[in-house]
């Protein structure tokens, strides 16, 4: 037995190595744009050339980042003003919707839920004109609040679905036990289901944060230049004659940084939350 163990372990590590090689290759492939972005971002304007785009910069030019940041700062602030309420409000609404749809079998619930989900499949482009008309009518055209409202509404189907599915896995007896103990519908939601659905909140908040932060189409259509979020501002940073690719890349990195950080620090909660509903019986 003792003589048999070491070769087995070796075999296992060999297999692991074989697995890691394609994984590392795939990772490298996916990191190429990030490499180019950072690489170009640290170059001086003179160094930027298609011929030499793979070459490392002669020195680290942080001034690109400060220049990009100065230009993008108002837009960055607009994005933050947009993303935080958009993610938060749509999560809360999704949670309440999900609770009602999963736990309160009211008449018509079976009709309303699929109807709500249908909203997920409406292409952005198809509603742009009525959207603009509507925002004009309610005087929210051009500003950040109108964009927040759009993202909240577009987010409701996915957030409702996530929460409904999670609440449906909560054992019925838990809810009934709370009812016996004297909790009403809202108290049951607040004391039992809401705290239990923290993992779902993490998932939904990250999801909504990312999609609102990365959105370009709604933002470019609905906001005036002073209220541009970072995606639109980045696109318009390029001058009409010369494009300062190094500053542009530094700006792109600044624009991508928040979502990157969110995934790096909260990614594992994201996965855990996605799996929470599926695996816990």
């Amino acid at each position: 037995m003792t003589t048999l163990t070491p070769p087995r372990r070796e075999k296992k590590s060999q297999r692991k190595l074989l697995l890691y090689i394609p994984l590392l290759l795939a990772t490298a492939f996916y990191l190429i744009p990030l490499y180019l972005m950072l690489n170009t971002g640290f170059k001086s304007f003179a160094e930027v050339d298609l011929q030499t785009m793979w070459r490392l910069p002669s020195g680290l030019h942080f001034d690109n980042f400060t220049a990009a940041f100065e230009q993008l700062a108002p837009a960055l602030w607009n994005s933050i003003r947009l993303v935080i309420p958009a993610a938060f409000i749509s999560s809360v609404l999704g949670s309440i919707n999900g609770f009602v749809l999963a736990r309160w079998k009211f008449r018509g619930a079976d009709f309303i839920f699929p109807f709500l989900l249908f909203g997920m499949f409406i292409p952005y482009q198809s509603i742009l004109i009525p959207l603009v008309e509507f925002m004009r009518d309610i005087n929210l055209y051009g500003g950040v609040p109108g964009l927040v409202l759009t993202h909240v509404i577009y987010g409701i189907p996915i957030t409702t679905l996530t929460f409904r599915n999670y609440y449906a896995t909560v054992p019925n007896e838990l809810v009934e036990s709370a009812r016996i103990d004297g909790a009403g519908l809202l108290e049951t939601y607040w004391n039992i289901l809401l705290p239990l659905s923290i993992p779902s909140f993490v998932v939904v908040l990250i999801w909504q944060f990312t999609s609102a932060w990365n959105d370009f189409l709604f933002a470019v259509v609905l906001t005036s230049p002073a209220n541009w979020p970072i995606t639109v501002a980045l696109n318009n940073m390029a001058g009409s004659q010369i494009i300062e690719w190094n500053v542009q890349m530094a700006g792109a990195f600044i624009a991508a940084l928040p979502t990157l950080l969110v995934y790096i620090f909260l990614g594992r909660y994201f996965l855990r939350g996605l799996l929470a509903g599926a695996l816990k019986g």
Partner: protein
Amino acid sequence: MAEIRIENATKRFGDFVAVDKANLVIADKEFVVLLGPSGCGKTTLLRAVAGLGMADEGRITIGGRDVTYLPPRERKIAMVFQSYAIFPHMKVRDNIAFGLKMASVDPREIDKRVNNAAGLMHIEKLLDRYPSNMSGGQRQRVAVARAIAMQSEVLLMDEPLSNLDALLRLEMRAELKQLLAGIGATTIYVTHDQIEALSMGDRIAVMKDGLIQQVDHPTVVYDLPSNLFVGSFIGNPPMNFMRGQVQQNGALKVKIGDFELEPAERMKPLLKKYDGQQVILGIRAENMETLNHPVADGVKVQVRVVEPLGSQNLLTVKIGEDIIKVSTHPTFNVAPNNDVWLRFPADKIRWIDRDSEQVLYP
């Protein structure tokens, strides 16, 4: 005072009648067990009392108050669920206190009651732990503590021990019985385990197919079942049933195979009506006398199987066309294929109508 009256309670799920005109009166501080196989409607009836699934027809009163259509929280009840239903995100202390907090009880009083309930269930040391890393037995104790902390006059329990392993269940059975006797709440306890029902209840209500079959003291339900189902459901082994032919040639006799049995005097007038017809005889395994020598009033049978169970030897024998189980003293020496003689004490035989399956009582 919390007498529970269930009058003509009916509950349907679509076309399926889960509980059919149930009538049951549970006296104040009484412990009644609802017993029956799965799907018999016992849990449905309990839930109608709890307010978790309102009755479609009939009336349920608690302490004279009509609660038929009141929501659970207005019924002043506490309940223990089969799956314990402990809130996983709350410490044990907060779990026990939850109902009291919902009822806006004074915080000092809550503290007192939580500690008291935890003391009764011996879980003082678990109060500041989360339920996730607790054993089934510990969770079960938390669930009971949560119910008793409410100090409700009515306590409902839905198979509270069925998720525990056999040994723990035996232990908790006695502990629960003692605890519940001390609390003095009117209790409805649902179980499918007939031994649990016999050992715990003041009275047992046996249910089948949505109908209450019999409500009585455990020994009565065991000894004098109202029908064939109750006899076959209660007891381990269940009551034996044999077919017999009633014959009146001068004296009234019942033939089982070749053996002629004389019924008890008080049964004769009833059995007269069955002259020439078949009846079913029911007798408990321990009520037959087994002998290893021929006797005039005994029937000769051949032993098929011998099961030594420690406290008794259980024999499987064939009599007439029927297979029955006979319990003997563990020292009774017998091997398979041996002949033994059985004696049926007349007062231990229950007579059952073949069509209605009702036990005949004079």
